[in-house]
């Protein structure tokens, strides 16, 4: 008995030893920064000088900061805009690519390829596409008699332009949807066809319920990355979120406050607020998923 328990103790110790690199990594790179950021969010901290504890001042200042609300609004617009549009496009593409057509592999590769491009490179590419005078989009619009806007310089169009650009990376979600679609038993479709169900009836009553876990997965991931939007705006419209702060996203604002103004305590408070927001949105999505997602097979 003693030997058995000491053996299990040894096994536990060895197990812990093998886990140690991961545990160290988790502690050093995740738990400590999270805790430190929480502490600094309660301090006036300029990075270069020791933090001075100021209680909840940063959080109360945040609540009264119009830029905080502006950037939060912009980010929510982007997150929900890009998630909805991304869902439609990637699911639509996956449905199209789930059919039996010639050179299917080629199409799949073509639609997946853009998502492999780094965000910085694709942002620069889209800056040219959106060029008000000689951009591809305005040239195409001009051909059909529409005088396109100066997309990224126009406060009305800059944000929708960045949302529209997010579709460029739909390939990743498309592959996941495709995998989900191929997992739907064909017998269900056969039965539905025998019952006289059309394409849309099959889509609504079979396809969507059957791939609902995949949709849930993609939506949650997209919402999280949507709230973290930074690179597109930083590259395409600059760190000020021009024009008229229409592209000042939350993380961009956080970056300005933390790394340009050296108000790292305030930036830490912003980071924690974002963390809680993402947590709440994910929780809400999970709650919703209990009603709409089916894991039955």
């Amino acid at each position: 008995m003693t030997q058995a328990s000491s053996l299990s103790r040894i096994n536990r110790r060895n197990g812990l030893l093998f886990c140690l690199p991961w545990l160290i990594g988790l502690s050093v790179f995740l738990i400590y920064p999270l805790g430190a950021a929480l502490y600094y969010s309660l301090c006036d901290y300029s990075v270069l000088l020791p933090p001075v504890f100021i209680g909840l001042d940063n959080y109360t200042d945040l609540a009264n900061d119009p830029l905080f609300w502006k950037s939060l609004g912009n980010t929510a617009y982007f997150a929900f805009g890009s998630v909805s549009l991304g869902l439609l496009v990637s699911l639509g593409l996956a449905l199209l690519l789930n059919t039996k057509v010639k050179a299917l592999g080629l199409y799949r590769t073509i639609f997946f390829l853009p998502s492999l491009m780094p965000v910085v490179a694709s942002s620069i590419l889209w800056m040219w596409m959106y060029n008000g005078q000689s951009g591809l989009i305005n040239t195409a619009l001009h051909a059909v008699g529409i005088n396109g806007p100066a997309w990224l310089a126009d406060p009305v169009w800059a944000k929708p332009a960045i949302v529209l650009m997010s579709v460029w990376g739909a390939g990743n979600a498309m592959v996941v949807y495709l995998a989900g679609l191929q997992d739907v038993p064909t017998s269900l479709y056969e039965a539905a066809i025998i019952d006289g169900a059309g394409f849309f009836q099959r889509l609504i009553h079979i396809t969507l319920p059957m791939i609902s876990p995949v949709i849930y997965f993609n939506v949650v991931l997209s919402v999280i990355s949507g709230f973290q939007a930074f690179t597109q705006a930083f590259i395409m419209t600059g760190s000020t979120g021009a024009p008229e702060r229409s592209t000042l996203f939350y993380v961009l604002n956080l970056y300005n406050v933390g790394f340009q103004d050296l108000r790292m305590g305030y930036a830490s408070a912003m980071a924690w607020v974002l963390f809680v927001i993402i947590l709440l949105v994910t929780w809400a999505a999970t709650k919703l998923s209990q009603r709409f997602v089916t894991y039955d097979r």
Partner: protein
Amino acid sequence: MKGLFRARDHRSATRCGRRLGATALLAIIACAALGVSSACSRNGDKPTLRHITYWEKWNGFESEAMDLVVADFNAQEAAHAKRDPNYAPIEVEKVTVSKIEQKLLIAIAGGNPPDLAGNYSFVVAAYADHGALTELGPMLAKSGFDRSRYIEHYVRLGEYRGRTWAVPIAPASTALVINKRLFAEAGLDPEKPPITIEELDAFAEKLTKWEVTSADGHKHIETGYLPEVPAEQKRLVQVGFLPNEPSWWMFGWGDFFGGRLLQGTDTVSTASPANVRGFEWVASYSQKLGVGVIKRFRSGFGNSSSPQSAFLSGKVAMVMHGTWIHNFIEKYAPGLAWSAAPFPYPADHPELARTTRADADVLMIPKGSAHPEEAARFIEYASTQAALEKLCLAQQKFTPLMSVSEDFWRAHPNPYIRLFRELSMSENAVSIPRTEIWNEYNRELGNATDLIQNLKEPPSRALARVQTKMQAALDRDRKLLARREAP
């Protein structure tokens, strides 16, 4: 037997665990030993060399210019060591770092800064207030640093709250730069650039061209702002002047009307009447040309340092530009006929003549520099007239020194370099406000300028909002600063 086996298993498992633990420990010790030994061997290779790292913001020709100075310094140090075997020579290793104004702070905060850094003068106040710099005054005093050798405006850029934190090395100023061919085509005398803002506006109208489509579909060129022609019938092809081309100094147009963004160090004065007047002048171009027209026209421009830039491609006839414009012209539009003149002043304020934006590149020693004395030696060398002239000639700028050699003037390729230098000595030379909240202030001004140019808000209201917000930010920062400095 079973018990024996179990006992043996137990012992072997214990041994195995011990072995694992010992192996892990050995691995850690070995890694540490390797690190130490490699550090020792690095030190052992050149025991007497004093190696210092220097972060520089420029790449391209400006960086190559500084390479020349670094090479000369290293050669001089090597020669010294050759003459005197007891002398440990200093070797400067220059590294180009983009976004240095932010990365340097992070490096300082991380406790691993370079020994020396080449930065912009506008960061000095914020860096000094955050305790990110080594004060240069005492070190420079030892080497006999004489601030009267410098053009007063530039040496002041390195000073803040009565102390010296940085030394200017490559200054610049701005002037009105005109395209002489476009002047001649518009019937203007290319040798007579505008002197007042009113003249500039009048010239700009004459230099603005549209492609107009008449009712029968025929296209022809017309000059002026053409308010009577509907927007869908005209396409802007050339413009006389745009306040946001280039857009680097949009925050500072009030300076040209006698305004200042900061009064002293504690009062934000964004909404002063002179600043409002300056931004009303900026808005007047949006009113004359049309907000959407300007946006579309500007989106066709390339980068400032490219042949497609607004001025180099001949799309904008007059721009405010810096000393370095000659280099861009030489490289991207070698045949361009151009000239430079002091930027115009409002006719009712002749005392504002020769207003110029004058900032500088500076050398600074970050807090925590491992070799501050050696870095100061390099600063001392780089501040000699010979080194500064070599650097500024290669960068096509003028030096920050009062004294200039005849060889420098003779060798300088920019035909207007004397003008740029004289402007920097004007009493109306202005620089970016020296305040720790400049980054935030600049972003607020950028947003206000957006609203003003898009005719969304009158300048008085937009600037008043910035003033209120930035005064609060300055007060907040001062309060925090006092709290940080409190024992």
